[in-house]
């Protein structure tokens, strides 16, 4: 006689269906849009999409999600599904940005800001510092690092979102982590030396 072990309850189990599922629509579009608006721009920014097109790219992600939500089969969680769209759109935007004819500068020129705008300038400064460190990573390493360290997904969710085996996700994250630490230390040393 075969004994079946009870499956342990973990946080990976998808959240219960929202009430709208009974009406034939698993996830209401409003919920999808609200969820996306919360984390999509942030994710795209740290995945390397240039700051001036972050919100345009976020719109693209939400439009794709809203159009395809009917086809969502629930093989992954809604969250990882949307992160997957984010990653693909970010890749596309990075590629487009690389192919632009304009000559791009790596860093924006220094601007003088009135006192009321100082927090925004300071925010732009630390964002730029973090992005400079993340720029040292490969595309795959960056995806694993951003989703795990900034978006704080579990490693299993990271693997689902980037469509890679779990071990690969671990490997990429480990490599990215080492490289980020090294790059940050190097950057700090350069700042100290002036």
């Amino acid at each position, binding site marked *: 006689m075969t004994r079946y072990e009870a499956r342990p309850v973990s946080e990976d189990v998808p959240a219960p269906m929202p009430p709208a599922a009974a009406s034939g629509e698993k996830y209401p*579009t409003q919920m999808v849009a609200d969820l996306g608006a919360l984390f999509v721009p942030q994710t795209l920014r740290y995945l390397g999409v240039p700051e001036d097109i972050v919100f345009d790219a976020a*719109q693209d992600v*939400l439009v794709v999600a809203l159009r395809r939500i009917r086809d969502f089969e629930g093989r992954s969680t809604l969250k990882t599904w949307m992160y997957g769209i984010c990653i693909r759109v970010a890749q596309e935007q990075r590629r487009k940005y690389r192919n632009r004819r304009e000559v791009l500068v790596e860093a924006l020129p220094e601007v003088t800001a009135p006192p009321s705008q100082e927090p925004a300038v300071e925010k732009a400064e*630390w964002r730029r510092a973090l992005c400079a460190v993340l720029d040292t990573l490969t595309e795959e390493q960056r995806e694993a690092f951003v989703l795990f360290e900034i978006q704080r997904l579990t490693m299993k969710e990271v693997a689902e979102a980037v469509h890679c085996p779990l071990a690969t996700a671990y490997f990429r994250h480990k490599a990215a982590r080492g490289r980020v630490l090294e790059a940050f230390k190097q950057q700090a040393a350069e700042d100290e030396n002036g």
Partner: protein
Amino acid sequence: MVDQREPLRLFESAEAPVQLRRLLMRAHEDVPSLAEQERLVEAARRRSTAGGSAGATSRLRWAARVARHVPKLVSAIALVGAGVGVGVGVHHMSEARHRQAAMAGIPGMPAPLGREAPLIVPMEAPNAPVEDLAPGAAQVTNDSPRAQAPVRPRPHGTMPSAATTTSDGAGMADRSERPGEGRGASDRSGSGSGLGSGSAAGSAAGSTVAGSSAVSRSAASGASRNQSTLVARRERSPSMQEQERSVDGSGSGEAALLLEARQALVTSPARALFLAQEHLRRYPHGILDQEREALTIEALVALGKVDEARARARAFERTYPASPHRARIEHALARAVGAEKEP
């Protein structure tokens, strides 16, 4: 092996510097403001519902993408077309050259594909019997595998000569297998008057007047003509010389022509001389120069033009000091001297 336990995140790890941990925490909290979120949702909803169904939009987007690549596609097609055009042009040119060569009756030149080019016997000497023209193809093909394909049978049904291949003929066939050998020993730039007179003879033989008149004119050619021919040969561009060689790179056509001349030497020295000059005309930079010159000298001896033969022999000796044909030339000259003394 990768440790598959959930790693400690950097923002809570003592391994990371404080500034980096702070940066990561700030990045985690760096979500858009409520107003930004609302604007984003509104714009996305508008876009997702605008423009009809998603399928139509994606088709439009696909069409726009294709339209963006149309100029590249057109230029690629134009490039490919130009390449094919150039290829076809080159093919036609080479075919025309082959046809022209076959019309001129070069024995080693195959007829163009799909049509049989008429074989024209090149300017027969008046006193040469038709049987003398038989190239002895069977003997050549037996000795030289490369000479097998290009030598075509005569159209007027003459059988190959029954005479066995002479040692000289075999030597020619062997040399035709190794195109570089004959040229390697000779210094082309310093060929001197020996080759120069040969060139002059060839230019004389290039005229439509055939037979012994051409022979006598070529034999009487002066030093000035030699010089002018030499200059003309030196002035030829390397590409022209290359073209001349590529007419028959294997040398089998040359070999067949000289074999005819060799076979005609006994029965009709005038024809042999004529064929040697014909060889010079067709293959001014051929690989059987030494054979031709030796044959010319022997033919001159046979015709009784001993002085000219001797002058040519001296030039030959200067040009090809290590030539294996020297013994044969000396033998022919010695025989001529003996014949002079006899009466």
